[in-house]
């Protein structure tokens, strides 16, 4: 591997000329210490211990390092400064905090500005402004940056970061070529007469272009890819070639890309190059240019056709590599899902624009083209969250997609995700029900939607380790008359959500570690929870693996989430099999309740007949229901409370008990509620007992049922409000 070291002067040769592109370089022989550049990557200094964030992050799961790492990228001098500082705080799985601030100079080596972008666990990072002071030195080890974070209604946080590198990213490039072609990665910038008058004459290489974009570049020696003369390439063939010939190929996100110099694409000469890798799970790792395509056709009467072709090939190679960094075309910036709202740049003199498409055509383009990316593109490459930029990470054109959470500077609401067990570990096939708690942590009452914590109102993001994040799409979308609730200071509302499955399928099913994050939407405000980590254990038998294929289906999920169905026969059959074959597994508890619940009431179904539809009412079967449900809610009450979660366990038990009582099985109903009372009274989770008011309400329910009266309170609403 060959490192490209253009030297600090190339990246940082503008001294103190922040924001002034093309400033005259300062004299070099006797540099005054103040003029040493400061832009680059810094990491939290071990000399000054960091102050903790105001809201502690969740504990790291076993097997992950709980060390919090902080890096910042200061971008105020050197080549194309963006007057920006960005930072990444990481350390637990992938629950990163990423922030970006725009800077203005406020003094010698000092800048300040507002944080305008946040990504990740933003609730943990309420700061809104930064004050940045750099310590310059000719010795890298003596350089440092002090940042004071302020705003968000919190005390200031001061961090000192030590110098790591003058570059913001590190990327490895490999230039392979079709047999008979040449991977020419350099150009004489003054070889063609149509160029900016101010353009420095130099031998420019592709690695240097990306160094100037802020990336430390290493390269691998290129090698030929065998192909018969006249061969053309399809995208799939190139993807196959990449897997075989790229020395760094991996089905993983990595800061590395493969560049293939080929003759022609199968689609013909109108395709000059392509980032062909939108195939499979790891996009943007492979690019190609077609050296014999239209990019090798100089315009008629061009003053130096050979130089024109060299430049066009060079431009094309960098253009395709820009796509691998997730850069869109200049006129596409507002399309799709840009990482921040972006304006199109149809006239940009950027590697990402088409020379032929600007006003005045290619001659006008190249007469102003300085072999660079535009400032918004540089901002993205240098400062956007890593996953948006890194090859093989976010899918192509996605987060070129990210909508910034509308998090307030001083949050008045707090959302918690939790489970009623000491450790968030689930058996294989056990449905993952999460509880949500939204608390007013401000000093003023807040109006919230009564259904603010309903699954259909929330945004829930699920991410299996090593996989892309997915958004939970709940089965049910409520369409109800809006109602609001006043949430007093210190008061909370509660909800539950099935994280395992939705219309997307079973997103939390395979064994492994998952990260879950939820956002409740209150007015224009997004209240984002801390990331929550849970684990799914592997199957304990081959039998479980077989049955899992039937359990992890839409129909079975619907039966589980809706608390049973007499209509979805396939799902019922699967759950019946689960009860019979895996009686000691937790999925069996959920299956029993889902199978028994519909038997507790007269069940109405619309059945097709020759004349249309007929209402069929299947009578309740309280004895059969009790036989199914009692082993789950009574005999294994402790496990059920843990597996269903307290809110859901109580809600199910009360509903079942009321229905049993209504169907004439008062004794079973009382037994069920007694079991719930005894179980919840005895339970503590992380030292936290169940609220006394909940137990009191359950006792009232039990007494009412025992007296043969109908329970008047809407049990579910009460359960959600109080547990």
């Amino acid at each position: 591997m060959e490192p490209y070291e253009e030297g600090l002067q190339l990246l940082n040769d503008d001294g103190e000329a922040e924001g002034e592109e093309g400033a005259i370089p300062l004299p070099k022989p006797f540099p005054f210490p103040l003029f040493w550049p400061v832009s680059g990557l810094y990491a939290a200094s071990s000399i000054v211990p960091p102050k903790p964030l105001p809201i502690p992050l969740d504990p790291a799961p076993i097997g992950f390092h709980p060390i919090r790492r902080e890096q910042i990228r200061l971008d105020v001098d050197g080549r194309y400064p963006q007057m920006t500082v960005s930072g990444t705080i990481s350390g637990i799985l992938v629950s990163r905090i990423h922030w970006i601030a725009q800077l203005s100079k406020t003094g010698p080596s000092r800048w300040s500005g507002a944080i305008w972008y946040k990504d990740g666990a933003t609730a943990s990072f309420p700061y809104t402004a930064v004050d940045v002071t750099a310590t310059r030195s000719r010795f890298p080890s003596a350089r440092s940056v002090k940042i004071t974070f302020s705003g968000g209604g919190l005390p200031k946080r001061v961090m000192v970061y030590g110098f790591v590198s003058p570059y913001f990213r590190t990327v490895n490039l490999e230039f392979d070529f079709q047999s008979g072609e040449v991977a020419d990665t350099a150009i004489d910038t003054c070889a063609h007469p149509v160029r900016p008058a101010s353009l420095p004459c130099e031998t420019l290489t592709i690695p240097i272009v990306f160094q100037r974009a802020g990336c430390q570049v290493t390269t691998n020696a290129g090698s030929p890819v065998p192909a018969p003369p006249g061969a053309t390439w399809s995208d799939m063939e190139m993807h196959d070639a990449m897997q075989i010939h790229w020395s760094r190929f991996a089905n993983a996100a990595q800061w590395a890309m493969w560049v293939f110099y080929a003759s022609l694409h199968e689609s013909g000469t109108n395709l000059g190059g392509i980032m062909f890798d939108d195939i499979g799970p790891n996009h943007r790792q492979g690019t190609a240019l077609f050296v014999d395509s239209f990019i090798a056709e100089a315009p008629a009467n061009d003053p130096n056709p050979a130089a024109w072709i060299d430049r066009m090939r060079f431009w094309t190679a960098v253009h395709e590599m820009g796509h691998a960094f997730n850069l869109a075309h200049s006129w596409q910036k507002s399309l799709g899902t840009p990482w921040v709202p972006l304006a199109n740049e149809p006239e940009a003199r950027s590697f990402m624009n088409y020379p032929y498409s600007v006003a005045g055509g290619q001659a006008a383009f190249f007469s102003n083209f300085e072999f660079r990316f535009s400032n918004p593109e540089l901002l993205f490459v240098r400062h956007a969250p890593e996953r948006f930029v890194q090859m093989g990470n976010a899918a192509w054109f996605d987060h070129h997609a990210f909508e910034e959470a509308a998090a307030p500077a001083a949050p008045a609401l707090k959302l918690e995700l939790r489970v009623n067990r000491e450790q968030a570990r689930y058996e294989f096939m056990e449905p993952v029900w999460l509880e949500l708690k939204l608390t007013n942590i401000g000093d003023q009452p807040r109006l919230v939607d009564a259904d603010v914590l309903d699954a259909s109102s929330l945004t829930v993001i699920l991410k299996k380790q090593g996989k892309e994040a997915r958004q939970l799409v709940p089965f049910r979308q409520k369409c109800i008359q809006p109602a609001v609730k006043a949430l007093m200071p210190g008061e909370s509302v509660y909800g539950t959500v099935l994280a395992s499955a939705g219309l997307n399928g079973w997103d939390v099913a395979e064994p492994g570690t998952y990260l879950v994050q939820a956002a409740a939407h209150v007015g224009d405000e997004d209240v984002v929870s801390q990331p929550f980590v849970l684990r799914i254990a592997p199957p304990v038998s081959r039998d479980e693996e077989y049955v899992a294929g039937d359990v992890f289906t839409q129909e079975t999920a619907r039966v589980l989430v809706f608390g049973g169905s007499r209509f979805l026969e396939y799902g019922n059959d699967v759950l019946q099999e689960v009860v019979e074959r895996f009686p000691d597994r937790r999925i069996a508890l959920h299956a029993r309740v889902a199978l028994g619940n519909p038997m507790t009431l007269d069940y109405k179904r619309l059945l097709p007949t020759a004349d249309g539809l007929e209402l069929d009412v299947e009578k309740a079967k309280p004895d059969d229901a009790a036989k199914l449900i009692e082993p789950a809610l009574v005999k294994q009450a402790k496990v059920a409370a843990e597996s269903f979660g307290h809110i859901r366990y109580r809600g199910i038990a009360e509903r079942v008990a009321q229905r049993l009582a209504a169907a004439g099985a008062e004794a079973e109903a009382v037994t069920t509620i007694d079991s719930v009372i005894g179980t919840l009274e005895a339970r503590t989770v992380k030292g936290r007992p169940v609220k006394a008011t909940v137990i009191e309400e359950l006792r009232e329910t039990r007494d009412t049922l025992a007296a043969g009266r109908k329970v008047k309170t809407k049990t579910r609403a009460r359960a959600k409000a109080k547990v």
Partner: protein
Amino acid sequence: MDGLAATRSVMLINVALQDGFDGDTVVIRVDGAEAYRREQVTTRTQISHAADTQLDVPDGPFELEVDIPTRGMQESFQIDPNAHPNVALSLLGGQLVAAYPERLGFV
């Protein structure tokens, strides 16, 4: 285009369907006569290309009518093929827009 060729001299223009297409049907008419029809037109964003074709057109100003029934959109453009032999059509901001690049090539 036999009728057109029989009555007027013709020339070729290059037409590309570029950004914003997603499973669309595209019909192109030249002075009212259907010259191109394609279904399931979808843009590959990394090359800003969905489809391209060459059309016989009059050797003088003509009307290029573009119909996208899948979106209920219809637009007409007056084009002088001698000045604009390349036409790039895109769906941007809910509108069908035409551009006339110096040449059509995709990267």
